[in-house]
């Protein structure tokens, strides 16, 4: 395993990283944990001219939380540090569900959430839970900063709204709210070591015993993490019972557009979308009522 040749920088400020990225132009890539990039490079699928590591920028690995404004996760925060953060465990358990199934101990000690999003694999485990929880991402370039909802971010496998010269600086989650609950369920051939064959994220709001809001995002069954808007609509106004679950989970399977590959057949994936949607809605419902008390 020999890597292609590239030049390497580890700037100590975001400004320096941004001007390097701008200056080097095409062929320059930022690297966070490197767990996607190193694999792609060793397979010859990525040949960067320049690598700009973000890991020497102080403070970029911070996690901050306040009950009014929600959670901010810095772009170089490692997955392992998300897993041990009690505030995330308490307020955003669906994110923990995703991160704990990702990869293995060693990879989680290197990899980042921002890297998982920027890599934009259709199977990226963090995308469904972050999208259903209305996450936003902050992007910076030498021209300034902008903040986008994650639901608009993905454009295709490996494709995002991020423009050349932009660096993701942080990920934001809105403040936890009473009456809302979220869940993420995934299935794969070999637990976390293999990437997801299907992943389903759900967030619901429950008022007077019926679903008043719902967001359902399906992972690994379309070129991008897929909003199942028909299924969301069919959940509104209904109570949690078998009839509701059957209706909505069948609809989600119908809305998914999976392919057959080494991990699973399209038919199996559709069936699993139904099973996981049912389980995730049930758990999101339970979490929403737990937050009432």
């Amino acid at each position, binding site marked *: 395993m020999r890597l292609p040749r590239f030049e*390497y920088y580890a700037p100590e400020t975001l400004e320096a990283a941004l001007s390097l990225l701008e200056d080097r132009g095409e062929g320059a890539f930022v690297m966070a944990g490197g767990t996607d990039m190193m694999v792609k490079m060793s397979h010859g699928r990525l040949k960067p001219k320049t690598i700009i590591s973000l890991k020497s920028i102080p403070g970029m690995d911070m996690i901050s939380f306040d009950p009014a404004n929600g959670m901010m996760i810095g772009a170089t925060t490692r997955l392992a540090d998300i897993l041990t953060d009690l505030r995330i465990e308490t307020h955003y358990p669906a994110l923990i569900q995703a991160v704990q199934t990702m990869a293995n101990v060693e*990879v989680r000690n290197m990899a980042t959430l921002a890297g998982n999003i920027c890599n934009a694999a259709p199977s990226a485990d963090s995308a469904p839970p972050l999208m259903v929880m209305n996450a936003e991402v902050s992007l910076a370039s030498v021209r300034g900063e902008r903040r986008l909802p994650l639901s608009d971010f993905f454009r295709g496998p490996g494709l995002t709204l991020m423009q050349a010269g932009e660096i993701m600086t942080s990920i934001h989650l809105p403040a936890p709210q009473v009456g809302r609950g979220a869940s993420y369920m995934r299935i794969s051939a070999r637990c976390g070591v293999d990437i997801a064959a299907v992943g389903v994220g759900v967030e619901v709001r429950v008022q007077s015993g019926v679903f008043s809001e719902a967001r359902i995002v399906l992972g690994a069954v379309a070129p991008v993490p897929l909003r199942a808007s028909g299924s969301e609509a069919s959940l509104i106004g209904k109570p949690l019972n078998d009839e509701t679950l059957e209706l909505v989970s069948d609809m989600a399977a119908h809305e998914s557009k999976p392919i057959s590959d080494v991990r699973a057949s399209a038919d199996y994936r559709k069936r699993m979308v139904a099973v996981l949607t049912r389980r995730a809605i049930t758990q999101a419902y339970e979490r929403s009522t737990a937050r009432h008390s």
Partner: protein
Amino acid sequence: MKHNIKIVVNGDEYSLAVDPWRTLNEALREDLNLTGTKLGCGTGDCGACTVIVDGRAVSSCLTLAVSVDGKSVTTVEGLAPSGDELHPIQEAFIKTGAIQCGFCTSGMEIAALHLLSNNPSPTELEIRKGLSGHLCRCTGYNQIVEAISVAGEKMKKCCHEEERS
């Protein structure tokens, strides 16, 4: 252009000039001749290349050598620095029959060290989860799980004695 880096490996400081595309695995095995750390898959899937960098177990095949400049690395050679007395983890691996061909062993032992430093009394499930990134083609894993739990007990005892003395 080569980068000059300084790394502390198993307590010894080294200055190296490395190409940016050199992995930590290559630097350890080829530049420092520390061949206890293995290279299996090269893609983060097998765990054979696991080392500890600043207290965290990582895959040396997915780590650039330049990125560990100024950091401290522990490899399997660091478990028993004198070579005379084995580390409790190594002892337990031998006693429970957790080694056959040995190719996975250095990665397994380093993962065990990382696990036991963060969680001195792991349950069987916690041990299995801690090893989920490690493949072994020989032992069937049960002896490895047992070895780690035996080593955990032993390590607690020796630390306890050190505290008392």
